[in-house]
């Protein structure tokens, strides 16, 4: 049995109450949504908060609704609900596809979109028991000062392992945060930062309340994931593609690759494409560019060379599917 450390549970009934509680409890409090990430990590001694604030009762944060030209998805909407939502499947296909392949069916019924966006980064030297980590002298992310992934590394390179992150960035979504100072909106691309120790821009005392996904005509998006088994596993590599078309020809393309390091990566070659290139959409050239741009680290399981070679395969697969849908 893996016992949980002792803590006090709080169950606020509204967002305001939750924010006030966070301000009162200070940094010793952690937020609990679905529990599929926080609780296993707590069982492995990675966190030991004195207070756990359960968001279970915040019914107002559940559901997918259309507001003007945006799809607003409450942070407490389960991944299962996001994956099954007709609106999400139509207007934010990459996000619905990503939500549909998180963990196993039970994780998706419990886990929430907000929780997945705030998922702790993962590393083969971090997601272990305290005994295992102690035997190796701990690491940069937790209790130690050496990195076992990059020799002499001073910055944690644990991998962003949330499926929905790459999709949210590719879809130009906005993360809505509520804190003591009010509501703050951040583009998903700026929400994630390149620090494995803490890879989101969420400040102390802030609560992620929703994800706003813009709805655009002529937009298609897809998500591809690499994992060993067809279920349960975290991504070894993930690729989200967004393609905007107008009058039958491509106008904009975004390719986001994640599960490499702490921050999902926007493929620079895709952003540089001119109007002429977009018209022909050189899939093979883009896949080759992605292979050159991405260098997976031995931070998560899976052979590094295999993961690198699969960058090309996944980008090609995603672009092929996006163009066939458009």
């Amino acid at each position, binding site marked *: *049995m*893996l*016992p*949980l*450390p*002792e*803590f*006090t*549970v709080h*169950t606020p009934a509204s967002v305001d109450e939750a924010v006030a509680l966070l301000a009162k409890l200070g940094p010793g409090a952690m937020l*609990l949504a679905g*529990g*599929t990430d926080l*609780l*296993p990590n707590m*069982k*492995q001694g990675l966190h030991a908060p004195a207070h*756990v604030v*359960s968001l*279970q009762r915040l019914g107002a944060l559940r559901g997918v609704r259309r507001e003007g030209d945006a799809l607003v998805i409450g942070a407490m909407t389960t991944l299962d609900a996001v994956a099954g939502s007709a609106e999400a499947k139509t207007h934010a296909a990459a996000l619905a596809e990503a939500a549909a392949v998180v*963990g*196993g*069916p*039970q*994780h998706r*019924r*419990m886990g929430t979109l907000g929780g997945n966006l705030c998922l702790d980064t993962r590393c083969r030297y971090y997601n272990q028991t305290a005994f295992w980590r102690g035997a190796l002298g701990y690491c940069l992310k937790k209790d130690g000062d050496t990195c076992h992934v990059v020799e002499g590394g001073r910055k944690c390179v644990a991998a962003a392992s949330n499926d929905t992150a790459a999709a949210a960035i590719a879809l130009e979504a906005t993360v809505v945060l509520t804190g003591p100072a009010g509501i703050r909106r951040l583009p998903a691309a700026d929400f994630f930062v390149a620090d494995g120790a803490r890879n989101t821009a969420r400040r102390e005392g802030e609560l992620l309340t929703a994800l706003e996904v813009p709805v655009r005509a002529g937009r298609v998006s897809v998500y591809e994931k690499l994992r060993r088994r*067809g*279920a*349960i596993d975290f991504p070894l590599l993930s690729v989200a593609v967004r393609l905007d078309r107008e009058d039958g020809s491509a106008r904009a393309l975004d390719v986001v690759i994640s599960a490499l390091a702490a921050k999902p990566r926007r493929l620079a070659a895709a952003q540089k494409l001119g109007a002429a290139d977009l018209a022909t959409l050189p899939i093979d050239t883009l896949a080759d560019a992605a292979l050159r741009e991405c260098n997976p680290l031995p931070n998560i399981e899976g052979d590094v060379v295999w993961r690198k070679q699969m960058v090309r395969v996944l980008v090609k697969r995603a672009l092929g599917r996006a163009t066939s849908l458009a």
Partner: protein
Amino acid sequence: MPEALVTLSLRVNGDDVRVAVRPSQTLLEVLRVGLELTGTKQGCDKGDCGACTVLLDGEPVLACLTLAVTCEGRVVQTVESLTREDPLVDAFDCHGAGQCGFCTPGMLMTAKGLLAKHGRPSRETIKQAISGNLCRCTGYGPIVEAIAAAGEGRRGKKDEEPLPAPLPSWEAPKP
């Protein structure tokens, strides 16, 4: 300082129960230790295997990653709620889907949740539904067949055979 106990009221297998729990206890611990319902198994205890799957308000979830205190007023169904006459249990029996039996309670509850939503799920739907439940005997074939048979309301190859005789009732030996 020991953790303060919290009184938790919930409905387990049709019974309203009140139980004193610590805030750091999972639903799995409360079921197995507090209520002595040891049918629900503890496998990995960190959400990787699905052995602890129970129905929470009708939805199959992992009891090892559910804090007991967040279940106040909710309805829990464990494998103990399934009788020998349950079509699903009967199908598992007839198809030899049990094997070592450790994953069976989780498989049964996942299947129960699936059949409540899909009357006659396809093999593909069944495989998707049980993809979060690991069977280390790797006896997935009979499990999928058993769930399909229960969904279709038939008893597989044993359809023509009579039901097994009820177990003889036990009588105390006469002195």
